[in-house]
Every structure is written in structure tokens, then in C-alpha cells.
């Protein structure tokens, strides 16, 4: 079977064996995958599958094989989207070897998946991961006995601490040596094979476990029990959680903002003292476009990468330590009353970094009502791109003390908007989905692990942002400088005309024509709002010059109204695109955009008019 796809699409490579990693969630499967492949994986577009699978070429003692990481599943017969993906994959792709990854300390229930794979008749081997945890919790496994009873090779490894990986590679090579190239098989009648053996499965598990595994007489993970007593405390659990979150954000911005300022000063210097002289002989239109447009736009975003990196680093610690699932436990009662669940809360929290991965994360939900409602509230999470705008505006219009309060208020409003939205629309997107989540033991995250992940997230962000900045900067440039001969960004330019056109709508909320243009571009991405403002105000020399220009024309009340609108309306085009692809509904996507615009306008209107009545100017 051969496939023909463009360069990005990856499928079986002829002559190379196909090895897939199958395992339950929470078994360290992705850690194992990245350790085996040294993180050279890329995302392959598999025909017929709607999700992206990680794939990498692996050199095993001279033989090249393709390694594919399948999504974590609980049950080959399960009903979740991921479980269907794995079934479709096994039915449509010839596989030479299945690497079954199990959490050694939970072999009492995970063995089931190994038995299911064996039932399919595919060549397989078993890697018992998290050997360190099994030892800690007192689970003893007789590997030879287990291998004999399963009739599969069994190895004990710890991917996190890189133990047993060389042996695992060797075992994969050996298992593959038995099958000639091109011997890979697709599974026929997968459902029927599994259904036929379902009852025997439970009966088969008991004797195997009894013969090969010894369990501790008592629960040994005293640390998790002790921590949970406090962290899941009925009264103290939530306050502790919010305190941890507050400290985390504090630390991120205490470290990140100085780094951001230093980097932005560096880029500024580069643009003024290196780039500007170098471009002096170019036509002024072109050189201005490069220095004021491109470099400014790219500079604004890259200055902001350290904060994003730190954010994902912190998020990685919270997630890998096991605390994130505790957050779901703590918040579930509240979220249930909003028609959501603990997972929606965790995803919204991730949305504070970037809305796009958070919306992708709703895939774990099966009920479409729950997914849609979660997608509707996630865009209200104050993402790091918006924070960038707010940090700047707050520094221009307020003292540091007031500024911190304003930012805190915006965070509260972000929660408020999400809660209001959920309450208003929970009836329309009702769900009956049950919630069963694992609470893994507390674990110490390792630095390479979270470092690698944060790095990948930043690269991903940069990839998205770059495209939008180019697009946005060119767009702003054209709007400001067309028709030919007008003064840039003047009332006669296209952007000036657009601003005037929208005045009847936006004047009541205190947004002047220039701010309007910034908002229009903020629709593409919040990353370009500041760069856009700089171009519009013709103050591209430095951010403090932009601050002065802004403050001389805009009152603080207008500035707050602008921030409120920026917080609540559509976060960016990529979020809209992801909502569209994930919900697969155009109507819902439009509704989501429209609702956020209406809410943004109403909130800004109320604030601006009230402030006016009170006499704040």
C-alpha cells in the first residue's frame, strides 16, 4: 500500500517497518516516544484520521523504522474519539510491531490493554514504564513469568530517568528481525475480534497477575496521601490552589517582564543603529516598511517570547506534578453548575497562556454540548498576547500600583465573562457526560521534560505568530498608506476612513478612529495591536514615544474601555480558525465571534458611559 501526499503528509515509508506505541493515558508514553526518537519527531497527516500523530524515523542497529505515537487510550473498544482513532489506524495501516506501554505500578488494570492488543494477533512487545514508581509503591513484577504467560517479550523501563532504553531498542530490533520488511499487517474485523474475547479477558487477567505480580499489602504512597489531605482539603483546597496560581503568575511576570524589556530594548537598538543605517540608501517607502513595519512587528512579538516560555515551563510543572488533575477535582462542583466540568476549568486555565492549544484540548470531551460550551468560554481567558497589550497600556496610563490593580481586575473580568457565558448558554449546549478522571500520584517533574515541552510550545507559538505578523503588518501598512499620496494614517487614508466609518458604533464606548484601526487588526492577532498602534501613531522609534503620543490623545477612561474591549472580543484569527476546525460548524463559529463582540461592546459601553456620568474623564 503506498500513499502519495505532499511533503508535510507522512505515511508508511516503503521498505521501512512500521512500529506504533500504544498505551493508556498517564503511562509516560510521550516521554518514552521522545526519548526513543531524541525529539526528532514531526507531525504526520494520516489519511482518514482527523488528528495529527507524532511520527519519527528511528535507526535501530542499522535498520530504519518508522515509529508512530498513537493517542493514549483506556480501552481498544472504548467510545472516545482517541480510541476510535487508534482503531481506525490499526485497521488502515500495516503495522510490523506494536509497542505496548504500561504503567508498571498500575499493571493490575493496565494489563487488560496488553491482552486486547494480543487478541488482535499483531506482533507486540510490552514495555512496563515507570519502574521507579512501581518500586516506590512496592509492586514487584516477575518479568520472565509475565513474558511466558503473555507469550510476549516484557521489559521494565523508566523513560523519565532513561533506564532500560537501550535494552528496549534492542528488544524492538530483535522483534522486528523476525518479520521481513513488508510483512506488516492491517487488522481485519477488529471489532469482532475484540468483542469475541471480551469476557475471557477479565478471566485471563486474574491468574496472570497472581502468578507474576506481587502487590503491597498496604498503600505505600504516603506522600501523595499527605499532600492530598491539604491540597484537596474541603475548605483550604481552593484557597491554596488560587494562592499557588497567583504566586505562579507573579513569578512568571517578575522574571519575564524584565527579560521582555531587555530584549525589546536590544531589538530597538538593532533596528535604529544597525538596520536603519544599512537601509539608508533604499527607497524611503521600502526602508520604512522594513524598519517601522516588519522589524517592529516581529520585535514586539519576539520580545514577548520569554514570558510565554516561562508560562509553559510553570504550566509543565503544574501538569507533570499531578496538581492539574487536583484542580479539576476541586473545581468540578462549581463547573458542574455552569454546565461544564473540571476539565473545562483546567483548559480555561491553559487558555491563559494561549487559547489555541486550550481549544484543541477540548478533544478529550465526548459530549458535543460540553465541548462547544467549553470552546465558547475559553476565548475569554486572558491570553499572554492580550496581557502584552495590557501591560503596555497600564504602564502608560497608570502608576505601577494602579496598573497592577487594573490588570488584576481584567483577570477577574476574564473569569466573570466566562462564567456569565456558561450560565447564559448552558441550556443550549447541554451535556450528560460523565466525568471519570485519574488522580495520578504526585511526581517530581524533570527539567529536560518540562524544558523540552516549553520549548516546543514557544516554537509553535512563534510559527503561528510569524504568519499573522507578516499579514497584519502588510495590511496595516497598506491601509495607512493607501490611496497613494495621503499622509500615513491620516483621516484620508483607508484606515482613517475605516475608523470614521465605525465611529457611530465605537464613539459611544470611547474608541477614537485610530484606536478603531488597532482593534480591527487585533482581530487578526493581539500580537500586532501594539505594533499597529505604533505604526498608526507614527511613533515607531520607541515604545515610550508611543506611550506619550497615546497619552496625549487618549484619556485613561478611553484606555480602560479599549482594554475591556480588547479583553473580550475575538482573541485572534487563529482561535477562530481552530474553533471552526474543531467544532466543524460554521454557525457556531460565527456565533462565538458575534457573542464575544456583543459582550465586549456592552461591557465597554457600560463602563464608558458610567464613567462619563460619574465625571471621570
Amino acid at each position, binding site marked *: 500500500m503506498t500513499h502519495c501526499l505532499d511533503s508535510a503528509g507522512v505515511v508508511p515509508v516503503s521498505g521501512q517497518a512500521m512500529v506504533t506505541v500504544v498505551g*493508556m493515558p498517564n503511562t509516560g508514553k510521550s516521554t518514552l516516544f521522545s526519548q526513543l526518537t531524541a525529539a526528532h519527531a514531526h507531525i504526520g497527516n494520516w489519511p482518514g484520521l482527523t488528528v495529527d500523530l507524532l511520527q519519527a524515523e528511528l535507526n535501530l542497529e542499522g535498520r530504519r523504522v518508522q515509529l508512530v505515537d498513537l493517542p493514549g487510550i*483506556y*480501552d481498544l*473498544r*472504548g*467510545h*472516545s474519539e482517541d480510541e476510535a482513532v487508534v482503531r481506525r489506524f490499526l485497521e488502515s495501516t500495516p503495522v510490523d510491531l506494536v509497542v505496548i506501554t504500561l504503567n508498571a*505500578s*498500575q*499493571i*493490575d*488494570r493496565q494489563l*487488560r*490493554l496488553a491482552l486486547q492488543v494480543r487478541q488482535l494477533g499483531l506482533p507486540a512487545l510490552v514495555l512496563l514504564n515507570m519502574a521507579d514508581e512501581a518500586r516506590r*509503591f512496592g*509492586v514487584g513484577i516477575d518479568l520472565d513469568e509475565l513474558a511466558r504467560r503473555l507469550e510476549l517479550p516484557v521489559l521494565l523501563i523508566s523513560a523519565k530517568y532513561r533506564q532500560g532504553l537501550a535494552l528496549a531498542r534492542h528488544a524492538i530490533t530483535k522483534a522486528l528481525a523476525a518479520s521481513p520488511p513488508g510483512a506488516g499487517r492491517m487488522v481485519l474485523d477488529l471489532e469482532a475480534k475484540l468483542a469475541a474475547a471480551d469476557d475471557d479477558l*477479565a478471566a485471563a487477567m486474574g491468574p496472570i497477575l497472581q502468578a507474576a505480580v506481587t*502487590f503491597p499489602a498496604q*498503600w505505600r504512597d504516603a506522600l*501523595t496521601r499527605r499532600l*492530598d489531605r491539604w491540597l*484537596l482539603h*474541603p*475548605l483550604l*483546597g*481552593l484557597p491554596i490552589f488560587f494562592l499557588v496560581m497567583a504566586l505562579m503568575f507573579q513569578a512568571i511576570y517578575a522574571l519575564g517582564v524584565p527579560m521582555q524589556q531587555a530584549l525589546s530594548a536590544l531589538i530597538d537598538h538593532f533596528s535604529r543603529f544597525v538596520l536603519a543605517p544599512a537601509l539608508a540608501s533604499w527607497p524611503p517607502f521600502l526602508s520604512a516598511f522594513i524598519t517601522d513595519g516588519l522589524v517592529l512587528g516581529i520585535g514586539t512579538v519576539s520580545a514577548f517570547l520569554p514570558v510565554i516560555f516561562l508560562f509553559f515551563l510553570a504550566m509543565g510543572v503544574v501538569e507533570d506534578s499531578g496538581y492539574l*488533575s487536583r484542580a*479539576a*477535582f*476541586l473545581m*468540578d*462542583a*462549581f463547573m*458542574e453548575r455552569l454546565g461544564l*466540568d*473540571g476539565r473545562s476549568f483546567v483548559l480555561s486555565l491553559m487558555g491563559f497562556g494561549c487559547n489555541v492549544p486550550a481549544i484543541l484540548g477540548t478533544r478529550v470531551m*465526548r459530549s458535543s454540548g460540553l465541548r462547544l460550551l467549553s470552546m465558547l468560554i475559553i476565548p475569554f481567558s486572558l491570553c499572554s498576547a492580550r496581557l502584552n497589550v495590557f501591560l503596555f497600556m497600564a504602564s502608560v496610563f497608570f502608576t505601577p500600583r494602579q496598573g497592577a490593580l487594573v490588570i488584576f481586575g481584567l483577570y477577574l473580568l476574564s473569569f466573570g465573562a466566562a462564567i456569565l457565558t456558561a450560565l447564559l448558554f448552558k441550556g443550549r449546549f447541554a451535556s450528560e457526560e*460523565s*466525568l*471519570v*478522571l*485519574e*488522580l*495520578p*500520584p504526585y511526581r517530581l517533574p524533570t527539567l529536560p521534560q518540562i524544558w523540552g515541552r516549553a520549548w516546543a510550545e514557544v516554537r509553535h507559538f512563534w510559527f503561528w505568530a510569524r504568519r499573522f505578523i507578516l499579514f497584519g503588518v502588510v495590511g496595516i501598512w497598506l491601509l495607512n498608506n493607501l490611496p497613494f499620496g495621503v499622509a500615513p494614517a491620516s483621516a484620508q487614508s483607508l484606515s482613517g476612513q475605516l475608523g470614521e466609518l465605525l465611529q457611530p458604533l465605537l464613539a459611544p464606548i470611547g474608541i477614537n478612529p485610530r484606536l478603531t484601526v488597532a482593534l480591527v487588526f487585533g482581530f487578526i492577532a493581539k500580537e500586532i495591536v501594539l505594533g499597529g498602534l505604533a505604526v498608526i501613531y507614527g511613533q515607531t522609534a520607541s515604545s515610550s514615544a508611543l506611550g506619550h503620543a497615546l497619552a496625549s490623545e487618549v484619556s485613561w477612561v478611553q484606555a480602560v474601555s479599549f482594554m475591556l474591549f480588547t479583553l473580550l472580543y475575538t482573541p485572534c484569527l487563529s482561535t477562530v480558525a481552530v474553533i471552526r476546525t474543531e467544532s466543524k460548524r460554521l454557525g457556531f463559529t460565527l456565533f462565538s465571534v458575534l457573542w464575544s463582540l456583543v459582550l465586549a461592546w456592552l461591557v465597554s459601553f457600560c463602563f464608558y458611559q458610567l464613567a462619563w456620568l460619574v465625571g471621570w474623564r
Partner: protein
Amino acid sequence: MVAALAVEPGLRHRLEALGIKPGQSLKVLRRGWWSGPIHLQVGMTELMLRRIDAARIQVFSADPSRAAP
């Protein structure tokens, strides 16, 4: 001890994969505030479960002196 699972097939698959099946003993570690989820230990696994779903798992007490809920 779990006696029976009175749940739809999708949830039954998930529960069984997590170790909740007839004959298996489980331990309630805590109940969440404001009728929040229940924190359970099943074998070597800890998990959370909403009360509405937990109510569909029929159990009997392993300790004969206590009545089944």
C-alpha cells in the same frame, strides 16, 4: 466491593479500564465540597468520579457490620 455497574456501555468500558468492575474492592478517600466529585482508590489507581455516576455503581460493604449504601 463493586456488585454491578448500571451504566451506559461507553462509561462501563472506561470504568472497567480504570479497574472498576464487579468483584473489585474500592475505597472512598474523600468527597468533594459542595457535592463535588468522589475521590476513590481502586487497586493501585486513584481517580475521581462524579456523584451522579458513582450512584450507578452498586456496591456492598466489605465490612459485614456496615449496611450497604
